């Protein structure tokens, strides 16, 4: 069996999740401090990819990155490279599709965070940057991990936008999900089942890790006033 689709899916999902991780945190931090009006509008815009059909995201991306799109033309002019129909294009598609999952989960964690801890850091003379890295992020660890796992799982299974911007070329752009579709179209059920099983195993592992994270979160409450000793 050719393992290229698994490798390709994993590297796309990993790179995209790494991008989403930082973009999601930055956006969440920025939006959670905005005044209410602008916050609502921005929140809608940033969450849009979650509710849009992935094919619509793919359509926009093709218009942007295609040889006639602004970004596609720029890349052609600078490096004489075409980005559509390569596996790199899938990374951008997956970042956009997974971004809202990370952003929303982290924003929820930031907004539920005890503001007094931030105020305490400020009155003790520590900079806002120090507080962000040393107090806020560690305090929202569970939220960050949950968002990351969700984004990774969604990225691994992404089909619609990916297939539009990268197509299906065996050994070059094939991912697990596009491979399953292709095998089914060819009537190759035996191989399709193998990839379906791989997919099930990965999804199951992701769900178990989300549940474990949630359980740890529930066990981690900071008691005030009563002692454990």
């Amino acid at each position, binding site marked *: 069996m050719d393992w290229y689709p698994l490798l390709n899916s994993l590297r796309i999902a990993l790179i995209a999740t790494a991008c989403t991780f930082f973009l999601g945190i930055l956006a969440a931090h920025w939006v959670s401090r905005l005044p209410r009006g602008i916050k609502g509008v921005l929140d809608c815009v940033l969450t849009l990819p979650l509710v849009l059909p992935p094919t619509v995201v793919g359509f926009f991306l093709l218009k942007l990155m295609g040889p006639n799109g602004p970004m596609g033309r720029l890349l052609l002019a600078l490096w004489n490279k075409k980005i559509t129909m390569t596996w790199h294009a899938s990374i951008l598609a997956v970042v956009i599709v997974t971004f809202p999952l990370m952003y929303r989960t982290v924003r929820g964690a930031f907004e539920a965070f*005890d503001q*007094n*801890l931030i*105020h*305490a*850091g*400020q*009155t*003790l*003379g*520590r*900079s806002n940057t120090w507080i962000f890295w*040393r*107090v806020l992020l*560690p*305090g929202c660890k569970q939220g960050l991990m949950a968002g990351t796992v969700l984004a990774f799982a969604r990225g691994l299974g992404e089909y619609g936008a990916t297939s539009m911007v990268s197509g299906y070329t065996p050994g070059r752009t094939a991912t697990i999900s596009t491979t399953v579709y292709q095998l089914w179209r060819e009537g190759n059920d035996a191989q399709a089942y193998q990839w379906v099983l791989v997919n099930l195993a990965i999804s199951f592992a992701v769900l178990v890790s989300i549940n474990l994270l949630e359980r740890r979160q529930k066990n981690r*409450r*900071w*008691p*005030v*006033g*009563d*002692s*454990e*000793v």
Partner: protein
Amino acid sequence: MTLSIDIRKRFEKFKLSVSLEAGVQVTGLLGASGCGKSMTLKCVAGIETPDEGRIVLGDRVLFDSARHINLSPQQRRVGYLFQSYALFPNMTAAQNIAVGGRDRHRRNETVERLIASFYLEDLAGKYPRQLSGGQQQRVALARILASEPEALLLDEPFSALDSYLKWQVELELMDLLAQFSGPVLFVTHSRDEVYHLCQSVCVLNKGRSEAVQPVQTLFESPATLSACLLSGCKNISRAQALPGGRVRALDWGTELACAHPLPDRLAYLGIRAHYLRPVDGPGENRILCPVLRVVEDVFSTVVMLATPGGAAGYSRLRMELPKEDWAALGRPGAIWLELRPGDLLPLTDPFS
């Protein structure tokens, strides 16, 4: 060094208007919950911004709306003890204290000194969730002192403690405050805490501050209705001044002589429950009161009495006396009560 506050801040439901000066001593900020006490502290610390006014600490202007000065919390050097202590849960007690350390080179030295002086040697490596409420408060105070503040703000520091623990922690805090050399603002709704810990007190009534007064004055001769209620007085009647220094107590349905000078805008009369005493018969300032209800408290008996003014609401009087004194009376249906002229508190209601 003095901390002078003169700020106003508008909210949807009420308006905060605080003006007070706190010297090098503990000044209590006493008020019912939701009257803006914590908001006042947050404005002083720079966590919240008042709409207008001025906050000055010593010779440093922390906030001045007219001159567009608004120092960040980091620049203000004002220590804030939060209600729930706000220790960083991902750091040990020692690490929490180190966060306060201003001078990078002397940080370890400062942490060690504070750990020793707060008796935290055995707890230094523990996380906040492993500490009791009293221990958490000690760590929080050590952390604040490590940041070398010029003023201290304490936001209901005992509200997260059991009453059993509270007394001990209160004593510890008293020792600490005695050593601190700047102004301290202490927010609470408990008259007992004010009495134990503060030298002067400012009553906050629905977002508006009354004049700062010595604690003794608040308890012996409160001037306003809200100060009187916050000092724990339970018997209040609407009142009208009569010629010759006499007062008509409208709710109690009687005329009384009052030993204290009557203010111009006399509105109420108060008398503390444990100053009321049964007497043997009629006379000056005496009224006949039917007994409504007797409630046994831990060390005293509480007797609810009707007055000539009625048997409901403010017309009732609450008398507290030692258990044996009440038992000696032998379950009377009504008693004669003397409201001694010196015990009557004439009150105004400045914001009505």
